[in-house]
């Protein structure tokens, strides 16, 4: 299973790489599928407002703050393990050491990741993923995509998602499918709950929520690929 998923992942990377080659991120070309994406965004918004937002709000209202924080910490710890892999793939040895230290500290003294001790002692999260690794390797971001439920992405970042899903991350090594699915489910709830504040901000700030989210997403990803020090973008005219 794992071997097969991995080779599918590799094939997809190769496919995406060939698709992405030569695709420049000029403003007119960042979103060639805009009409389709807007349709997907509408579907997403309808589902989000009808089902997800009320459910997540209930989760926020019912589950006490410290418990939700522990849940976030648990999933951040898993993401930190993924960061270690990507730090190494990007050749960032210092960062890999940092993230490795975080995982070891939080998994042991931090009760399996429920307590983020590493942040308390000032070891910052590396926050690297496969999409960023492809960016560092020189792949262009490719066309922007909006996927209902999953949200904004690009060809490059979406390929990153597929690689991560195919690998399964650390959770993928849990043999019991039911347990694995519960963990994935709670992880999704946690992620959406963390985004509730952002949702409110977008509702206040945006003239066109589709464009606002698209541009914020692309700016944010560019910033992450350059580790917080993006070179200045070419000004329009």
């Amino acid at each position: 299973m794992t071997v097969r998923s991995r080779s599918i992942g590799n094939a997809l990377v190769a496919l995406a790489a060939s698709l992405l080659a030569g695709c420049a991120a000029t403003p007119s070309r960042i979103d060639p599928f805009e009409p389709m994406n807007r349709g997907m965004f509408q579907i997403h918004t309808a589902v989000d407002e009808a089902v997800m937002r009320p459910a997540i709000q209930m989760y926020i209202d019912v589950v006490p703050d410290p418990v939700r924080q522990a849940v976030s910490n648990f999933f951040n710890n898993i993401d930190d393990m993924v960061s270690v892999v990507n730090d190494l793939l990007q050749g960032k040895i210092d960062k890999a050491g940092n993230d490795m230290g975080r995982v070891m500290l939080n998994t042991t003294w931090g009760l399996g990741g429920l307590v983020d001790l590493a942040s308390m002692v000032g070891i910052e999260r590396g926050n690297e993923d496969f999409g960023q690794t492809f960016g560092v390797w020189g792949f262009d971001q490719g066309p922007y995509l909006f996927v209902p439920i999953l949200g904004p992405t690009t060809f490059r970042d979406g390929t990153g998602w597929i690689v991560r899903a195919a690998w399964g991350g650390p959770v993928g090594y849990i043999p019991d499918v039911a347990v694995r699915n519960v963990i994935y489910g709670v992880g999704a709830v946690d992620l959406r709950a963390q985004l509730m504040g952002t949702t409110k901000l977008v509702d206040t700030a945006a003239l066109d929520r589709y464009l606002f989210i698209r541009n914020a997403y692309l700016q944010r990803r560019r910033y992450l690929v350059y580790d917080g020090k993006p070179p200045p973008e070419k000004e329009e005219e």
Partner: protein
Amino acid sequence: MFVFRSIARCAAPLMLLAAVAIGIASAPARAQEMPDVMVKRVAQDVLATVKADPLIQAGNEARIREVLEAKLLPNFDFARMTALAMGKNWRTATPEQQKRLTDEFRGLLVRTYSGALTQYRNETVDYKPLRMNPGDTDVTVRTAVVRASGSPVQIDYSMEKKADAWKCYDVIVAGVSLVTNYRDEFNEQIKNGGVDGLITTLANRNKGVAAK
């Protein structure tokens, strides 16, 4: 690697000292506050007020806006922010339109900011050392909001030196520029309804009409 780091660590405060010294030496009759000193002073003042005000803690946005008008907003260059968000369209607007655009965009940014500020509780702000050469008139002041748990959020302020003081013309939150993020939205509005269409949309948003 480590050698470089320790040099960087020592160099930063030294450079800051040097910058301050140069700032003092080259100051005209009235000394001009350094941009990072200004950001820190204003941010601490606003956050202390927000924290101490029971009305704000209860989520009273009108009160927040009052505080922002008095303490924060005079330090922003809203005309420059609007021009940046407009891009090449700015030049096609008449001075009258530019003024209305600036007023409405200012209103939108303030509404967004005051909404975010009601969420402020126990975060602390970490002020990064300023990297600035003598004679620079455009600098970025870097800060990070440190939360009780979770990753810090980087907030950078783009500052321009004006005759009387430094003014902020962009805020970059976690890598997202609040100003340039609007460029495509502004473009789209102008393409569909001209500059006046954009003014109407902004005014409607400020009156609470939901976005599409």
